[in-house]
């Protein structure tokens, strides 16, 4: 566990917050959009965490993660730091899981801060003297699914960047992959028979979504761990 924390510390220092105030610009902008602009535009629907708001939160977490995860291995390779890291005693699993954990924590953290800031902004702008808050069950569901969707993006990104030699190449591949994934989800929803939505309650459907995303997370992480081999990374 301490090795995973070491890699997370390194990622925090190196990739995410590289020192200096300008390192905070990106998360502040993202949190500003999610926690200030969106609740002001969304009004009442915002506080209900309706499906559209839910998708906005999840998409934000996913987007933030996809935008930084390409740096995980492709960035290290491009900056010639990977070989030295691999020559140290740090175990393979710690490197991989530490990188995934830090990226997820960053994307999910932006979502969580945005979520709570949004509630405050909504109350200031539209509260009319009453204190409104998200439905607790939807809040917990959003936080949980956000974590799973974040892990999905991070695992897919790390898996891709294991073998790709430049950050740009990894980002391009991830962008195309995200479009394909989005298209596949939309196509799947259209192909599902109408009875599906009658047979199952919204809660059951949401649970199925959680199950599918969790399964994909486990598969992608397991596949990444299997593909993480020092000898191949040194040669690639």
């Amino acid at each position, binding site marked *: 566990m*301490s*090795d995973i924390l*070491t890699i997370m*510390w*390194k990622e925090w*220092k*190196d*990739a995410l917050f*590289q*020192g200096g105030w300008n390192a905070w610009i990106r998360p502040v902008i993202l949190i500003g959009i999610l926690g200030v602009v969106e609740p002001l535009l969304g009004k009442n629907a915002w506080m209900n965490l309706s499906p559209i708001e839910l998708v906005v939160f999840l998409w934000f977490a996913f987007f933030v993660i996809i935008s930084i995860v390409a740096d995980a291995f492709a960035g290290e390779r491009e*900056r*010639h*730091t990977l*070989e*030295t*890291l*691999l*020559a*140290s*005693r*740090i*175990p393979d699993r710690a490197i991989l899981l530490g990188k995934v954990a830090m990226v997820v924590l960053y994307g999910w953290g932006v979502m969580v801060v945005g979520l709570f800031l949004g509630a405050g902004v909504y109350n200031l702008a539209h509260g009319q003297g009453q204190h409104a808050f998200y439905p607790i069950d939807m809040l917990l569901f959003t936080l949980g699914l956000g974590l799973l969707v974040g892990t999905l993006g991070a695992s897919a990104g790390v898996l891709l960047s294991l073998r790709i030699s430049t950050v740009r190449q990894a980002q391009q591949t991830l962008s195309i992959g995200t479009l394909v994934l989005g298209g596949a989800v939309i196509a799947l929803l259209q192909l599902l028979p109408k009875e599906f939505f009658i047979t199952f309650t919204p809660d059951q459907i949401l649970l199925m979504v959680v199950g599918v995303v969790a399964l994909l997370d486990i598969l992608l992480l397991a596949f990444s761990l299997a593909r993480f081999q*020092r*000898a191949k990374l*040194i*040669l690639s």
Partner: protein
Amino acid sequence: MAELAIRTEHLSRSFGAVQAVDDLSLDVPAGIVFGFLGANGAGKTTTIHLLLGLLEPTGGQATVLGFNTRAQADAIRTHTGALLEFNGLYERMSAEDNLDLYGRIYHMPAADRRARTKELLVHLDLWDRRKDQVGKWSRGMKQKLAVARALFHHPTLIFLDEPTSGFDPVAAAALRDDLATLVKREGATVFLNTHNLVEAERLCALVGVIRKGKLLALGNPDALRFKQGGQQVEIVGRGFSDDLLALLRERPEVASAEVQNGHLILGLRGESEVGPLVSLIVRQGAEVEEVRKGAASLEDVFLTLMEEDR
């Protein structure tokens, strides 16, 4: 027999049709600086990768500090430090964070990490710049920091892959001095890949010469100079034509013959007589003003070995 830091037995590694390391058998005693000499692409870096267990050999085996590279690579990496082809520094992090990271990786307590950071950075004259982002540093400063990082966790064995490559002579000499002092103070074994023969001559107690993955020679620099290099003769004069050089190279006692800055430089095998060669040169119409005789340098030995292997 001294304790061995490294032993390779018929170690081989190929990449497709390319034989990067070919039947390498080598013993490196503990506590010395071992120089691994070879031109670019000779197989030096691949050898380090094999010894660190980062690559699987395609044949033979190796033990490093008593650990097998195939089965106990984690243990090898725990007891070694490395400065590889690139310095591997995180340029967006500060110097002290770079060192702290590797201290954390090797599970050093926080107080030890702080003390070690100060000790090494003060010694290398980098302490005042410890908060700087490394990316803003000069190449020489970065390389010194990378040396500090390789030594940070008190490794028993340190791999250095051409640490002064691309440096100007002054910077290379300064880094070499720092390296020599640190290594002596730490008492570690050093496996030094280099094609800088002056570096090898000054630092190494034992050198191996590699070409196309094959070990051509192994010994201490003095012994190699005596055994392989023989003598060197420098002849000052005029009229050293290509025909004369070709004629000299055909002589069995001549290992090499070339003209440098108008001087004829002859590398001789063993204890050869110089007189008959001077007579030959004069008979061929060249003028001889002065003949200087001396021991071959490691560079001459290296070039002779390369020539012989062709």
